[in-house]
């Protein structure tokens, strides 16, 4: 459905590499996630795939159409929801939707089945101007507008950034329902916890792809045994663990410190004794499965 081959984008006089030799492919009906921090190059990739930006190297096809030569066909067949809300704030929900349906030469009625689930949630406010909507409602409206022409591929650039946790959860459920309608979805997000909701993900950092696989395969490939430790004094704990002879890596992860040790492994007793000498009381010690975030940090360290 989407095939990206060694695509590159360079910005400005400093020749900053925003996208560096990126290749990946997305299958039909797949929910594909681009996961990476801000400035990783996610938006640049989206803008190139939606024909808003010309690549400086490499090539890509969407729906079999070349992103440079066949931009017209691509514009007819993809839906794009930019990271920044970019509908007309001074038009109402209804007017925005009608407008975008019309410019794609279709009507709201024709593809209503696609947006029905989402639209009924904002329908009570359909006379309200888009600028006066809450963040979650704006996202829903933007998604409706991106869907109204029945695109075969949907590009969602950070759709959940700045949206509350409940709306985020709802949003991902909507995406699952859309996937069921056989729409290919490419979504980007800086939230690692959303990665597991995708079929396949690409971890991206500084314009380069670190790994592409299913979330399960990526977490399974984490090389070390991961242990979560908890103490009252987090910074002291991190410092002490860093000086521990058998340590491989340690970093803060929420209220825990995630640590990986050398091949021989360690026992809880061993750590406890060591930490006591450092005047740190260990509250918790447990073996855990690596999350996507652990994998991401692991890739960055290598």
């Amino acid at each position, binding site marked *: 459905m989407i095939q990206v081959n060694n695509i590159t984008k360079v910005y400005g006089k400093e020749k900053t590499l925003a996208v560096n030799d990126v290749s990946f492919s997305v299958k039909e009906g797949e929910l594909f996630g681009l996961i990476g921090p801000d400035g990783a190059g996610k938006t640049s990739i989206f803008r190139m795939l939606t024909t*808003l*930006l*010309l690549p400086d190297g490499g090539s890509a096809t969407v729906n079999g159409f070349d992103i440079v030569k066949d931009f017209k066909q691509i514009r007819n067949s993809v839906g794009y929801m930019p990271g920044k809300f*970019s509908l007309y*704030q001074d038009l109402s929900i209804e007017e925005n939707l009608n407008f975008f349906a019309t410019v794609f030469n279709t009507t709201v009625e024709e593809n209503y089945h696609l947006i029905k689930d989402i639209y009924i949630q904002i329908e009570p406010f359909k006379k309200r101007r888009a600028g006066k909507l809450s963040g979650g409602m704006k996202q829903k409206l933007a998604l409706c507008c991106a869907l109204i022409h029945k695109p075969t591929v949907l590009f969602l650039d950070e759709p959940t950034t700045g949206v509350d946790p409940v709306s985020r959860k709802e949003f991902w459920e909507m995406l699952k329902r859309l996937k069921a309608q056989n729409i290919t979805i490419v979504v980007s997000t800086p939230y690692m916890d959303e990665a597991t909701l995708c079929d396949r993900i690409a971890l991206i950092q500084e314009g380069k792809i670190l790994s592409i696989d299913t979330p399960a395969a990526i977490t399974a490939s984490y090389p070390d045994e991961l242990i979560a430790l908890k103490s009252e004094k987090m910074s002291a704990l991190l410092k002490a663990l860093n000086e521990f002879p058998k340590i491989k890596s340690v970093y803060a992860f929420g209220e825990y410190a995630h640590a990986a040790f050398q091949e021989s492994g360690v026992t809880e007793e061993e750590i406890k004794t060591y930490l006591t000498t450092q005047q740190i009381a260990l509250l918790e010690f447990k073996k855990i499965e690596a999350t996507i975030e652990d994998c991401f940090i692991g890739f960055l360290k290598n």
Partner: protein
Amino acid sequence: MRIIGFLLRKEFSQIFRNKSILALIIVMPVMQLIILPLAADYEVKNINLAVIDNDHSTYSQRLISKITASGYFKLAGYNASFKDAFALIESDKADLILEIPQHFEKNLIRENKQQVFIAVNAINGTKANLGGAYLAGILRNYNADLRLQLISPSKVDPLPVIEITSSNWFNAYMNYRVFMVPGILAILVTMIGGFLSALNIVKEKEVGTIEQINVTPIKKHHFILGKLIPFWVLGNVVFTVGLLVSWLIYGIIPVGNLLVLYGFIWVYLLAILGFGLLISTYCETQQQAMFIMFFFMMIFILMGGLFTSIDAMPPWAQLIAKFNPATYLIEVMRMVILKGSHLRDVLPHLGKVFLFAIVLNTWAVINYKKTT
């Protein structure tokens, strides 16, 4: 066509929703047309005059009263010496000094000639020029009066004199407002058209809506036409309101054919809207567009022959004026409204403005990219 229809509906509903802009579009021209022509008056009155009368004779008194009776001059000082009078100029209380020498009356009668001295404060060029000219005119007049009085009418005047009489055409009373109102209306139409169109596309860029438009299959020329037409209509509304104001307040009724006037405005609006669009394609923010537009507006206004005659400009400035579309509108407005010129007379102007419209719009369409 259907797409354009919808784009227009969208633009108009956005314009009508922005109440403050709408009010500005209507109220601004009315206010400016009412206030500006009253203030921008070239007829200089109240010129402050300092007089040094070294003669204190009947004749010198008569000259002074003639000057003050003219209505143009106000006696700011009646000084004993040039030094005192000059102090008045220095403190900006006087614009002109008239010095009447000693034995003014005696020499005038005995030797049939006499000189007076006029010193002009030239800081305010217009006031100085006109003041000097008015004063010279009054002196000439005074001179003629004296001749009549001194030379007995029975004698035939030995010197042939060319007497100049003039009659003012198209603006019989030399009313400055009649001349200014059409020019100011021309500038208003230019400003409304230029600013609205320049800011509109840039606003879409700034808010990000252009991104969403760019991924749609809307064609470039559809999008640009969708932007041009609403402002073209608004430009016509502003122009009509302006014409009504100049009729109701100043009693100016176009002497020429209204259709010629509107026909010219239609083409002119295309040119100026194209210019606004062109600027908007080069700018990223409304602030940038605003400042660039201001830069050009200043040139359009000051080098378009509104206040100063283009013929009086140096050659390089005349060349710039030729590339200023406002020049042609101001000229045509005055031609048609005051002189009643026909289509035939304004055809060269129309041709040039049409050329502006073609070049600017083509440039704007080419430069408006849907991809970067």
